[in-house]
């Protein structure tokens, strides 16, 4: 009796589990298939609509999945680290994860790819020992978004230097509208502070050592803190772009410095309460010692070195990064990395002239990093973020800012040493 009961329970359990096992294994057709991971990014959305064309043309079945960027990084890291990945092609953020992925050998070297249509510094970021690993997809650079109507009403012209920027921020900071906004949330603010640091003549890293405690970098951090502390929106130290943008869209910010990618969002009448004609895009004002906003490859595409379908993966990569699709991307307001896409006549006709002009300026004078370029970039951003928050909270007047920065520089140097990247 007892034994029979146990047997029955076991049988029921097994029979319940069987169909699930079957589901897990039955759909493996012999047809050529690849697995692609995309980001929740407008270019990923564009690719999704085009993938059926690729499948029809090549007969390769594409199983794609699209993920929010930090989920994407987590997933890729888990899959690659456990050496059991089935990913063939994926979107990747060169500055955030590129160095680590290259070091771990997770990217496939792209020896057959033609990189002649890309600015060389955009390819260099994903290159090691003369092998390129990442195809640049999308670039972004820092710009100044501003409210034409408010500047006009105050009788001001678009600021072109930091001195003018501060004066304008002060003048526009009234009637419940913040004069100036930029990211204030520690780690997230690091990328937006970068251009300020460059324009004051500083850097985050130099020759593989952290140098953001230099007088120039400190001056920039103080300036950034002074602007945001005095003229920024309330609670700015907990704001990243996803918090600043809605405030700008609601008409409560007069000037906003951030990456160029947000232009499409802030002029979309279904998302913003400000008429598009009142919104302008200008290059980031010059600093006392520089005029080089960041211009970075925010997204690239790469192949997995563990891919078992390399020829199909290569075909997909070539197609997904093709000139034709780059033009399509530009036409849907995505700022692509390919030079030819910017030269395209059709594109130039519809592209916002402000974006074209700031891109040209940044491409010529810009600096290709917006964050410390190192494997432990996430931790380094947290550390620098603390310095930024201290500066904002004290409106740039903190007496312990230099000491704090020195302490964080030491910590970042330690990270570099641990990763074997110090002094390189």
């Amino acid at each position, binding site marked *: 009796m007892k034994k029979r009961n146990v047997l029955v329970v076991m049988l029921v359990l097994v029979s319940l589990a069987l169909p699930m096992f079957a589901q897990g294994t039955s759909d493996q057709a012999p047809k050529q298939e690849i697995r692609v991971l995309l980001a929740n990014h407008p270019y990923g959305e564009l690719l999704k609509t085009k993938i059926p064309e690729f499948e029809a043309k090549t007969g390769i079945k594409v199983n794609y999945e699209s993920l929010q960027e930090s*989920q994407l990084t*987590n*997933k890729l890291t888990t899959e690659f680290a456990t050496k059991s990945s*089935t990913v063939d092609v994926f979107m990747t953020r060169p500055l955030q994860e590129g160095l680590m992925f290259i070091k771990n050998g997770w990217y496939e070297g792209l020896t057959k790819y033609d990189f002649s249509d890309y600015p060389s510094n955009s390819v260099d970021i994903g290159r090691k020992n003369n092998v390129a690993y990442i195809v640049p997809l999308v670039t972004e650079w820092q710009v100044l978004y501003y409210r034409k109507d408010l500047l006009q009403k105050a009788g001001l012209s678009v600021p072109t230097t930091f001195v003018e920027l501060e004066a304008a921020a002060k003048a526009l900071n009234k009637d419940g509208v913040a004069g100036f906004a930029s990211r204030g949330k520690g780690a997230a603010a690091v990328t937006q502070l970068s251009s300020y640091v460059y324009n004051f003549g500083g850097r985050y890293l130099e020759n593989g050592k952290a140098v953001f405690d230099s007088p120039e970098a400190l001056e920039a951090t103080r300036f950034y803190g002074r602007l945001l502390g005095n003229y920024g929106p309330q609670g700015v130290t907990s704001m990243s772009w996803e918090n600043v943008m*809605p*405030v700008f869209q609601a008409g*409560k910010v007069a000037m906003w410095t951030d990456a160029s990618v947000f232009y*499409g969002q802030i002029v979309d009448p279904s998302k913003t309460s400000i008429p598009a004609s009142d919104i302008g895009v200008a290059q980031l004002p010059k600093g006392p010692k520089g005029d080089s906003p960041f211009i970075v490859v925010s997204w690239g595409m790469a192949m997995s070195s563990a891919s078992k379908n390399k020829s199909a993966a290569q075909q997909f990569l070539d197609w997904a990064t093709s000139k034709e699709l780059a033009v399509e991307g530009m036409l849907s307001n995505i700022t692509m990395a390919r030079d030819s896409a910017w030269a395209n006549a059709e594109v130039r006709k519809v592209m916002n002239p402000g974006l074209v002009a700031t891109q040209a300026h940044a491409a010529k004078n810009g600096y290709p990093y917006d964050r410390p370029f190192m494997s432990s970039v996430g931790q380094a951003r947290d550390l620098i973020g603390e310095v930024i928050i201290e500066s904002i909270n004290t409106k740039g007047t903190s007496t312990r800012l230099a000491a704090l920065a020195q302490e964080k520089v030491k910590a970042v140097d330690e990270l570099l040493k641990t990763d074997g990247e110090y002094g390189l």
Partner: protein
Amino acid sequence: MKKNPVHSILFLLTLALIIIPILFPFIWMLMSSFKTQVDIISWPPKFVFTPVMQNYERVFIEQDFLHYMKNSLIVSVVSVFFSLVLGLPAAYSIARYKQKKLSIFILIARLMPGISFLMPWYIVFSRLRLMDSYIALILSHMLIALPLVVWVMSPYFDSVPRELEEAAMVDGLTQQSAFVKILLPLSGPGIVTATTLSFIFSWNNFMFSQVLSQQKTRTLPIAVYNFLSYVEVDWGAVMAAAVTIMAPAIILTMFFQKYVVKGLTMGAVKG
């Protein structure tokens, strides 16, 4: 004694003071899910607005949330079911035979941070070609549900007088059938508690599903991230998705609330 009107006003005020901060986020979420992006971000906040359905259209038509809902349902229901099948006898055994060490061992499995299981699971499931299958998710979610069932139920079983069972066995039942026929029906509220709680935990689980699911088996909490993109956060759709996800859990809890409280306190006051 007659009720003092001042007292009842004070009572209502206190009640409001407690309820408003708790309910406000929910109400705000519900309202936002019917607003356009422009209305959501407008300042000062709008309490009167023209409701729109576009957010729910995005959730159910563009993103096919019914598919994710189906996945979540399959995973939660099946994992809770198996947790009950295995957990109830286990809890009984622990209660009857005072298997303290065993129960602590089970508790440790629950207290270990879930993330430490993820890597090994990932390796095992991908070698078994079980990635993106329901079975991987169900097994992982049982780690959440099973200890909960055991820990809610064993004090519960302990509180049922042993004499009931013994009487049944004197009348000719085996211990197993006494457990099924006598003990389980008496433990209704406890089982409902364990089921509800483990269902909610499994329903809301993010971490396991994030790594172990792919497109086919993606569950609701992961799918919410479909509305967070590199250049925008679609707040309206996020709110609509949140309402969609919370609805079943809230309905379930409202339905079984009185059992849940009863079940949780049941084992608490025994001598």
